[in-house]
């Protein structure tokens, strides 16, 4: 039998759902563990950060880094993982594109601290204490905290990444794909995909989705999913429920639309574009409120129509704001 490879899991700014996604390999987890030893995973194993630091460089075959980079600790470990692992995978939407934590790029550190440590309903902080990188406890010991950044980054903004595994979290379809690649690499010596590959499909989510389309999509009114008794077989977009399928990469198995939830786009942009938000914007603008009387509409009418789309930024960049062209929100005077 071929020698086992070593794998490691490390989280950055992560909800740890990605660790759970690995556990969700279910019985396939044994297949994975038959070809690979898990040598480091703070969530699943009793290990300390120092254990990872002490491992020789490049001694781990494949490292999975999940979560975004939002503080100095995340960044330090992104570098450590890069040093220790021969192959580094950005696992999950957060490592791939910034993900949900990346939505914090609509604001900055000062505003976040103010909100979280002073203003929320459940905060009791009469002295207005804010986290500090260095502080002393009562006995005079120095305590440290990682530095909180103004901006959230995807993993490849910080270190070189070999492969991307999208989705929030990666679904079993995607995990099985990785497993096959890893297994064939270990057991048969098959070459790995070219560096920079996204382990998913080259198609668009709509190609993978089984909901019925009538052909030409026309959206007359927009609904939130709870506002309408929708047809469970039909395409969401045709029923006026915004679905990011047209602007999203396939590969997840269209699990959400199959479970009656519109797609929110966690797989990121399709292979042919780089900006998921702009591509969804174009798709939606071309079908929403189209009438045969288009020529009679004034520019104001069009503007009013588009104003019905609530929060385009949050909607179109839910998982990809740090990787969008503009990356973060700025503040400019409005007059």
């Amino acid at each position: 039998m071929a020698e086992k490879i070593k794998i490691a899991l490390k989280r950055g700014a992560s909800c740890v759902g990605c660790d759970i996604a690995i556990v969700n390999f279910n019985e396939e987890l044994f297949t994975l563990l038959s070809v690979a030893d898990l040598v480091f995973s703070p969530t699943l194993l009793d290990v300390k950060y120092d254990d990872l630091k002490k491992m020789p460089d490049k001694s781990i075959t494949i490292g999975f880094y999940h979560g975004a980079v939002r503080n100095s600790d995340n960044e330090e470990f992104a570098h450590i993982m890069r040093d220790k692992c021969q192959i580094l995978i950005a696992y999950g939407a957060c490592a791939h594109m910034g993900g949900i934590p990346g939505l914090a790029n609509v604001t900055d550190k000062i505003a976040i601290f103010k909100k979280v440590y002073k203003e929320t309903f459940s905060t009791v902080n009469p002295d207005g204490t804010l986290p500090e990188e260095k502080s002393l406890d009562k006995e005079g010991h120095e305590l440290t905290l990682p530095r909180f950044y103004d901006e959230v980054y995807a993993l490849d903004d910080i270190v070189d990444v070999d492969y991307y595994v999208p989705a929030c979290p990666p679904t079993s379809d995607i995990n099985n794909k990785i497993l096959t690649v890893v297994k064939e690499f270990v057991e048969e010596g098959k070459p790995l995909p070219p560096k920079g590959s996204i382990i998913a499909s080259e198609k668009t989510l709509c190609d993978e989705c089984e909901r019925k389309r009538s052909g030409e999509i026309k959206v007359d009114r927009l609904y939130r999913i709870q506002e309408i008794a929708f047809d469970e077989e039909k395409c969401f977009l045709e029923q006026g429920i915004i679905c990011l399928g047209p602007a999203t990469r396939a590969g997840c198995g269209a699990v959400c639309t199959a479970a009656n939830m519109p797609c929110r786009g966690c797989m990121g942009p399709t292979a042919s574009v780089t900006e998921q938000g702009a591509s969804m914007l174009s798709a939606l603008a071309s079908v929403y409120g189209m009438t045969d009387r288009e020529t009679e509409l004034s520019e104001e009418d069009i503007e009013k129509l588009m104003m019905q789309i609530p929060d385009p930024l949050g909607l179109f960049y839910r998982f990809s704001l740090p990787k969008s062209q503009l990356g973060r929100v700025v503040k400019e005077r409005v007059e």
Partner: protein
Amino acid sequence: MSEEFKPRILVFCCNWCAYAGADLAGVSRFQISPHFRVIRTLCSARVDPEWILHAFRKGADGVMVLGCHPGDCHYIGGNYRTRRRMALVRMLLTQFGLNKDRFQLEWVSAAEGEKFARVVNNFVERIKELGPSPYGKLERRERKAV
């Protein structure tokens, strides 16, 4: 500011109307502010919203999209698509924190050399008032190019 602010402005012109309008403005020798660059596209509908965002990322202080008047599109309905997209682009840019005047959509026909000069000059003036785009001077790590 010691040095005069020289805005960097990108103007997308459709081939059939706005670009011809720009040409006419040129041969008619209308005075036009020099702070803009033209990119010609076959139709204003060819202007992908991503390009506009990319221009701002690269430090543009303002972006204009100029196309044929509604009803006059060389490709019949391209500009109707354009105005739908651009309405949404403007909303998005405002959400990104830019002043809405940094982006403008205008209709310029092949006969409107004078209008071309006027809208561009007005736009340049407005951008000068607004000053440099916050994206141009944003201090940030160089992200991996997308």
